[in-house]
């Protein structure tokens, strides 16, 4: 997944060109992560464990310790990302390590369990970790695939421009609708009163707006007996408003797709740290 999805983002061959954090230093952290995972797998397969592989053998403890250290370090990205630096320990290097070591964790932590899962705290920690990693994988995928569509194809209009455009349309609509009789004016007012930003998570992710008041107003003006000149002007403005709203909804959808995983990734990371701490303490408490 990694190399392929990274391809459109990083064009690292040109000197000075942007290099994706995934490809950082020719996949240095991918290689380190792979070596870790392979070592863990080799140990799992070839080191005899009695009475079968589980977290309590010396190799199991080793995997658990490495896994816990990696998790703790990966979680530090949340603090580290607030300070941008360059060089060997640049934020990009950190992010690259965050991704590749996080993926290696799937192997390390799963082998630490000895493939024994049950209804217990250890499995809760493992499950939380897997959810965090999976949400992270989703995050990388959308980061690799979406920002291009976020920046192009919307008529070169930035988000503040869209908001300003909507305001301009509404100012004109307010004036243009003055001659309309009560019912029609009410529809226009309702359309203007509906904020595009009121849409919740599901609406934003789907990009649909089944109760779009602007669309309803356009439909409601059909067959109106009002002054045709005013009506035509209002209709034209509503049409522009609708087109702009669609653009805005598309932007919101992209933003939602880009940001939604963090609502899983971050709270579950914190939950994972709690579960991990409880797991480690309990293992030694009941030594």
């Amino acid at each position, binding site marked *: 997944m990694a190399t392929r999805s990274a391809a459109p983002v990083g064009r690292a061959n040109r000197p000075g060109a942007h290099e994706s954090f995934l490809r950082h230093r020719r996949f240095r952290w991918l290689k380190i992560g792979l070596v870790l995972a392979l070592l863990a797998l080799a140990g799992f397969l070839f080191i005899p464990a*009695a*009475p079968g592989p*589980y977290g*309590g053998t*010396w190799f199991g403890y080793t995997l658990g310790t490495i896994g816990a250290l990696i998790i703790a370090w990966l979680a530090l990205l949340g603090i580290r990302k607030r300070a941008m630096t360059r060089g060997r320990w640049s934020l990009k290097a950190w992010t690259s390590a965050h991704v590749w070591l996080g993926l290696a964790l799937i192997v390390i932590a799963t082998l630490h369990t000895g493939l*024994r899962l*049950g*209804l*217990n*705290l*250890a499995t*809760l920690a493992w499950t939380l970790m897997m959810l965090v990693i999976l949400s992270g994988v989703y995050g990388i995928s959308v980061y690799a695939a979406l920002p291009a569509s976020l920046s192009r194809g919307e008529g070169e209009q930035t*988000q503040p421009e869209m908001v300003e455009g*909507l*305001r301009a349309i*509404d100012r004109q609509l*307010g*004036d243009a*609708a*003055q*001659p309309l*009789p*009560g019912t029609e*004016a*009410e529809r*226009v*007012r309702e359309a*203007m*009163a*509906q*904020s*595009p*930003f*009121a*849409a*919740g998570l599901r609406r*934003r992710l789907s990009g649909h707006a089944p109760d779009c008041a602007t669309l309803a107003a356009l439909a409601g003006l059909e067959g109106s007996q009002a002054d045709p000149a005013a009506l035509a002007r209002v209709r034209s403005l509503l049409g522009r408003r609708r087109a702009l709203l669609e653009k805005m909804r598309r*932007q*919101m959808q992209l933003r939602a797709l880009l*940001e939604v995983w*963090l*609502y899983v990734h971050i*709270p*579950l*990371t*914190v*939950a994972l*740290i*709690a*579960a991990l*701490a*409880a*797991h480690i*303490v*309990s*293992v*030694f*408490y*009941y*030594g």
Partner: protein
Amino acid sequence: MGFRLRQIDYTADGRRIARDREVAGDTLAIGRAGENDLHLPDLAVEPWHATLTAAGRRITVRAVGDRGFALDGRQVTEAVIDADAGAELRFGSTPVTISREADGMVLVEIEGAAQVRPDPADDKAGFALAAVMPGKRPLAWALFALILAVFLVLPIASHLTLAQDGTRVRAANATGHVIGDKAWNPGALSLAHHMLSNRCEACHVKPFQPVSSETCVACHRDVHDHAPAGRLAEARAPAGLGARVLQGVGHAFGHEGPGACIDCHVEHQGMKAMEAPRQQFCADCHAGLKDRLADTKLGDAADFGTLHPEFRASVVTNAETRQRSLVSLADHPHEDSGLTFSHRAHLDRMGGVARMAIDLGEARGLGHALDCADCHQRSPDGVGFRPIDMERDCEACHSLVFARVGGTFLKLRHGDVAQMEAQLSNMATPVTPLDDTRGRPGDFGASYANGGLYHARFTPGGAVARAMAPDGICGECHKPEMRGGKLAVRPVTQTARYLPDGWFDHEAHRQTRCAECHAAANSASASDVLLPRLAECRSCHLGEAASKPKIPSTCVMCHSYHTSRLAPALAVNIRRRQG
């Protein structure tokens, strides 16, 4: 009489601007259409929305169309207000305040922007998902606190309060138990310990201490040590670097170190019989035992397939004293059981014994050449065999009848030489000696006996001597000797278990024919020890790592670490448990 319309606006720096305009007459038209006296450019307002009619203090407000207005927050279509008291009306989204000025004019105040319009888009922050989602931090901290409380604080607090009284924790009938530690259970307990599943504290007594051997022994009181602790320490191979590091780490966490119960017995591996310790635990000491314990009699052993000494059988080396010693099967041991016996003669399918057994016929439980089970009976537990009992297992053929009196027979008593002497020496005339021929009781005269197979030679006068002769009725099995001046036979000792420390179980081998392990058919002497040697066992059994069709056989398949001499009984118990 008239209306004073006051439009109040605020400049960007908050300064208030009031613009007054007067309308004569006692009615005021309110609406969105420009022709109204009070023009409200609010789309929620009807083009002709309402009229105000003033009559002195009394002001009547009447909606023109269906859409009413709000009076002090209440939606109405008509209202009468006292201008002196004043009121707040709301048309669409525009609030209008009515009051009366000192000069008698009705003051109508409109506050706010001239054009009231909802502002849908404050800034671009609305594009972000964060605009509609609850914060990540509250959710994160809530989960954090919940998990720590349920899975860490609760069990530890519960354990600490309960652990105040150590005896209560360990007592089998303890009432209270630790709450919330079930989630700590890494895997189900073995069948033997399953009843402790909800009482973790029964074994996990002290916080941050591994389960101690003392705790195990509190219940397992009868478990014997393998050897004195000092000797065990001496026997153990020095740990390698890696193992020393691990032991160091273990000690740091309170682990008791090599030889603790939990070193071999690992719990929480699922609800099944506890897994047998791996052979490495034994090999740690026994692989090079001779190098470390010079005085040991045990050969080095590490793996049944590759390093295991030849079996040493407990054989009787002196029938008189019944002394036993362990002799390696490699040294071709001879047993002095006190008997004379040829397995070959009995098992030879073409021999006289076979002939006799066939002639006896199925009605008498034979009718075929003898096989092992015709004489050897399994012990009730199936582990071994009952000792041979002359009357039960031999006498059917080897009759002790020596004379006939009228319609009945006289029979020697087995095992009583003095009685035999008395009976045979005092044979009186009326007694009919069974000259030369002898048969099964009740079968006297049958054709097979006439063949002269047995020659008891009970002829009067020399009867005792004849009986004790090597082919006499006693001497064919026993060795006559004089003891204390009296005639006797050599004491007979049967061996119930040649490998007393082993867990060999015949039941587990019942699919195997006896002859595959016991070369009885070629044994002409009772002194032969008919045990299979190591190499023969290895034709099926190899070490722990054996692959099919060989049977992986760890040390504990045949050996017990904690007990000895009880092995056969244990074998039965274990078989029963495995069911």
